[in-house]
Structures are given as structure tokens and as C-alpha cells.
């Protein structure tokens, strides 16, 4: 059990969920997340990224990861060793879902399994399993 590195609370900042539109079609919603650490990381260090919304797991194929103005599939994250995630920056998880989320509160849970890239000197990297659950509000902004 790891007693230090207590940063999981950072994963989900208190920011509204925003419905996403393409023209007059609402195709999904975006949730903001931060990297749960005292320093930034390379996106390739994310070994797993899972999302539950109101108790329901979201399939990977319905998720996009948006950072540094670029959009990635979750299956691409492991390749992104040149994509740095600055510790104060938020990434967006965009979930594809017809009509987005209803206005009001939703229970959001994010799990990120992530490798600490400087810890491999004893043969194995420290891999942290960070989970954070919060009730966040969806606002029907046009975006």
C-alpha cells in the first residue's frame, strides 16, 4: 500500500460537464480531468483510463482524450511519449452519446492507472491506481 502520493483528489476538478454539439446535433459531453500528481507526466505513462457516469462504465470506443489542443483515442495514449501533460492543465474526456447528458448533477468516477517514469531503478516501475468520484453538474451550454 502506498501511503504517500496522495493526489487522487486532483483527478476530477469541480468543473461543469459540458454537452458537445456538432451543428445542431448534440453528440456527447466533456468532463475535465487533471493529472493526479505534484508534477506533470507524459501521456504514455497512462496505462488505463476508465470512466463511470452515474454508475455505468463508458466503453473505450465512446471516449476521446483531448489535451494540448489535440484529440486522441484512448487506445493511442500508450504511444504518446512526446505529449507532455503539464500538472496545472486540464484534459477533456469527451464521451460520445446522443443528446449528451441531462442538465443537473451526475456522479462521475474516473480511474487512472499510471506509471511513475523515474521509479524503474529496482526493475519495476511504481504504478499508481488513482480513483476519484465526484458529483458534477451538467450545464446545457452551446459548445
Amino acid at each position: 500500500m502506498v501511503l504517500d502520493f496522495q493526489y487522487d483528489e486532483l483527478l476530477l476538478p469541480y468543473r461543469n460537464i459540458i454537452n458537445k454539439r456538432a451543428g445542431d446535433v448534440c453528440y456527447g459531453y466533456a468532463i475535465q480531468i487533471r493529472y493526479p500528481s505534484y508534477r506533470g507526466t507524459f501521456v504514455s505513462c497512462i496505462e488505463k483510463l476508465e470512466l463511470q457516469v452515474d454508475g455505468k462504465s463508458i466503453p473505450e470506443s465512446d471516449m476521446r482524450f483531448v489535451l494540448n489542443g489535440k484529440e486522441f483515442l484512448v487506445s493511442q495514449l500508450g504511444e504518446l511519449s512526446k505529449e507532455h501533460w503539464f500538472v496545472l492543465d486540464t484534459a477533456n474526456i469527451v464521451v460520445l452519446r446522443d443528446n449528451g447528458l441531462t442538465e443537473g448533477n451526475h456522479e462521475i468516477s474516473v480511474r487512472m492507472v499510471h506509471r511513475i517514469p523515474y521509479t524503474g531503478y529496482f526493475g519495476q516501475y511504481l504504478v499508481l491506481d488513482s480513483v476519484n468520484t465526484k458529483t458534477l453538474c451538467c450545464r446545457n451550454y452551446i459548445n
Partner: protein
Amino acid sequence: MDKERIQLSASLYSLSSYYIKEIFSLEDCLREIRDYGFKGIEIVAAQMVPEYPNPSDKWLGEFKELLDKYELKPICYSAYIDYGIRSDRDLTEEEIIQFTLNDMIYAKKAGFPLVRTQHSISPAIYEKMIPHCERLDIKLAIEMHHPHHPRVDVWEKYIELMHTKGKGYLGVVPDFSIFQVRPHKLLVERLLKAGFRKEQLDRVLELHENKVPLNETLKLDLNALEKEFTESIYEKFNPTPIEELSTLIPVTPYIHGKFYYLENGEADECIPYDRILPEIKRLGYEGYIAAEYEGHHFNMDIDVPGQLRRYVSICSKYI
């Protein structure tokens, strides 16, 4: 160096919790550090450089101007040996050399005389960095952090390089975590929160304090989790003798004054500053000791400005 041979600087990393929670911006951190009485700073590039890993000349120049504005000296640019950034393989020796060289160039541009790297750089790579240090006229020092100490094999090789081929450019940054004698308050609180029963934990800490061997202490009525924690307490709070500083100080360009929680401005209950600082002075160290508060790993809600002021108060008694 001004009048005093030993001066206090601070790692901006000390303010991690305030920075990450966006209570303090980078500039706020600098102003605060100056106000507490520190004369110089260390920056952990992967934490506070927004354009990391390749900051632009523009950003580095602006940062240098901020340091001038707050009359803080750039003391140390902290770099990582991130061997594990790729998913398919570890970085190669050549990649580590080039990334470390990059960090040295950025540090130089921002006016830092020293880059702190990590022990995992390896003696082979460390030796290959010497010509780069000479050409850029910048020091490259390795932090000695718990669980390392001067008698670890790899450190004997590093220290030899520091005395010979790398003299004047290579060095060690002793981190006072190697001298921790007992768990700090924030760790004790974490242990309790994780389920270590208070009565049992008090007993374990008492036996550890009285140097009762681990195998004896494990005979207490402890569950599996408590046993695991007890082992880690014994492993972690097994301090390097302070006398070992005589091996390190001759090759020390900079020191990490680690601390986790200070109850007051008089003494650190866990790291014996009252013995360490006089010894460092006696050994003739000239340079900066950087306050490196690390309680944020355990609790993000501590009054860190208060902690840093207490730190200045304690150190001022001895230097």
C-alpha cells in the same frame, strides 16, 4: 557567496500543494519564498515549467526576469531521469544523455549554475556528461535520497567520479531524508487512517524508538497490514550515521534540507537538524541549503508558509 558561508534557499517544490491547488501562481511562490527570508530557489522543471520538457528561450528569459524582480538567485534546476516514459521500452543511454544535456542547456539559459539529476543516471552516463558540463560550465549533481546512503555500491562509483574526472563539475546533493530517525506526524496520521490500530502503532513506534529488532517487534499482535507497515517503518527509519557527511561534504555543491512537518520553530522531531547543521558547518561546507518541504505527499491541507517560516527559524539557530 555573500558574508555567510552557508545560506538558505528554498525549493519551489516546497509549495507544491499551494501551486497545484492554484492558490499560488509561480510568481506568487517566488514572492512568498523571498518574504520568508530565503535567498535563492530551486525549480523542479517537470512541475513548474509550463513548456516542459522543452521550454522556449522566451519562457526561460521571462523566468530569469522574475528571479531578478524578487532578488532571488537561481540555484538549482531539477531534472528527472524518466527512463520509463515509453510503453514499449526503457529510454536508451543515448536518449538519457541527450535529455540531460537539454536540461543543462535550459538551466544555463535561465541562469542556473547547477542541474540536479537522479541516481538512476548510471555511472557510465554520468561520466559521459563531464565534457558537456565543462563546455557549458554547469554542474551536474546527483541527489542522495533515502533509501540510498554513501555505502551503496553505485554511490561509491559516483563519489569516486566526483573526486577525480568530474572534480568541480560533478557532485552530490545530500537529502536529509537519509537522516530521518522516526515517522513524522503526517505519516503517523496516514498509518492510522489506513487502518493501523492506534494502540498497536504506538507500541511499534515505542519499540522502534528503543531499537528493539524488527523480528521481536513483529511478535506483537499485528494483522497483515500492520505487519507490512511495521516492516516499512523499520526499513525507512534506519538513518544514515551523521558522521557519513564527512564523505559527502567534500563533493557537495548543494544540499536538500528535507522536512515533512515541523511542530514549532525550535526543532525537527524527525530529522536531527541540531546535529546535522553544526556538523556541516564544521566540515567547512560553503553553499546553499534548500528548504525542501515534502509533507504534501501525505497531506495537501497543511499551512506550508507557516512550515517554511518555522524552517528558517530552526536553521537560523545553527548557520
